[in-house]
C-alpha cells in the first residue's frame, strides 16, 4: 500500500489545483507524439500527425489530451485507492488497446516536463519528488493488468 504524508497530500492537491487541464492536457499529449513518434501508432484515426505543428494544431489530439488529463482527477481525489480506481482503465489499455506499459512512463515524464514549464521555479525538488511519486503510482495502477 502506498503511504502518503500530509505534506505530500497537500502538495498533490495544490499542484493539481493549479493545473489548467484544457491547456496542459493537449500540450502533454502533443509532446508525447512529437518526442516519442512511435506512440503515434496508437492514434491512426487522429488524422494529420505528420509534423510537430500538425500535431500541435490537431483538434483530436487536443481533445484526447484533455480526456487523458481529466482522468488524473480520480486519482487525486482518491490517493489511497489509486489501483482500484484505475482497474477498468488498466483493463482497457492493457487488454483492449494493447498499449506497451512503457508508454505510460513516457506520458508521465512529458506531463512532468509540461508542468515544469507552467510552474517555473515553484516546481522545486520537493514538489517534483512528490509529483513524480504520485505519477509513478498512477503508472503502476495502469500497468497492473499486465501482471
Amino acid at each position, binding site marked *: 500500500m502506498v503511504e502518503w504524508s500530509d505534506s505530500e497530500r497537500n502538495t498533490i492537491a495544490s499542484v493539481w489545483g493549479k493545473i489548467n487541464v484544457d491547456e496542459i492536457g493537449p500540450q502533454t499529449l*502533443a*509532446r508525447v507524439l*512529437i*518526442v516519442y513518434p512511435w506512440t503515434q501508432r496508437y492514434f491512426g484515426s487522429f488524422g494529420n500527425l505528420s509534423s*510537430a505543428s500538425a*500535431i*500541435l494544431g490537431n483538434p483530436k489530439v487536443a481533445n484526447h489530451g484533455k480526456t487523458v488529463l481529466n482522468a488524473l482527477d480520480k486519482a487525486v481525489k482518491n490517493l489511497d485507492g489509486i489501483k482500484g480506481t484505475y482497474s477498468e482503465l488498466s483493463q482497457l489499455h492493457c487488454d483492449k488497446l494493447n498499449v506497451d506499459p512503457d508508454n505510460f512512463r513516457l506520458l508521465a*515524464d512529458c506531463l*512532468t*516536463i*509540461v508542468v*515544469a*514549464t*507552467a*510552474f*517555473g*521555479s515553484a*516546481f*522545486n*525538488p*520537493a514538489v*517534483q*519528488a512528490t509529483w*513524480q511519486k504520485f505519477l509513478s503510482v498512477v503508472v503502476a495502477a495502469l500497468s497492473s493488468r499486465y501482471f
Partner: protein
Amino acid sequence: MSLSANDKATVKALWAKISPKAEDVGNEALSRMLYVYPQTKTYFSHWSDLTPGSAPVRKHGKKVIGGIGLAVEKIDDLFAGLLTLSELHAFQLRVDPANFRILSHNILVVLAMLFPDDFTPEAHLAMDKFLARVALALSDKYR
C-alpha cells in the same frame, strides 16, 4: 536514434540560449537527481552535504554541465569526443549507466522550468535525442 542536421542545429541554438545560466541548470539538475532519486546519492557519500543547492552539489553541477557543454561542442563525433569521460565513468567512477537516463530527465525538467518559451516540443525532442546519444557515448567503454 541518430542526430539529424536539424537536431544538431536545434541543440546548439538551445545551448547558446541557456549558456549564461549553465551553472544554475547544472545545480538544479544535480540537486533534483539526488533528491528525487535517492539511490543516486551512493556515488557522493564522501560529500558533507547532499541537500539541494549545497556547496558540493553546486560545484559538481558546474562540472557536469561543463561536460554537457563539451558534448555540444563535439556533437559531430560524440564517441571520440567523450572517450576520456567514458573511460572515467567506466573504470574509475563505475556509475551504473541507468543513472544517465535519470540525470537526463532532470536536465530536461530544469530546462523546461527555466526556459519555458525556448523549450518547445521540437527543442525537447532534439535535447532528448542528444542526451540519449551522450549517455550512449559515456557508456561506450563500459564493456
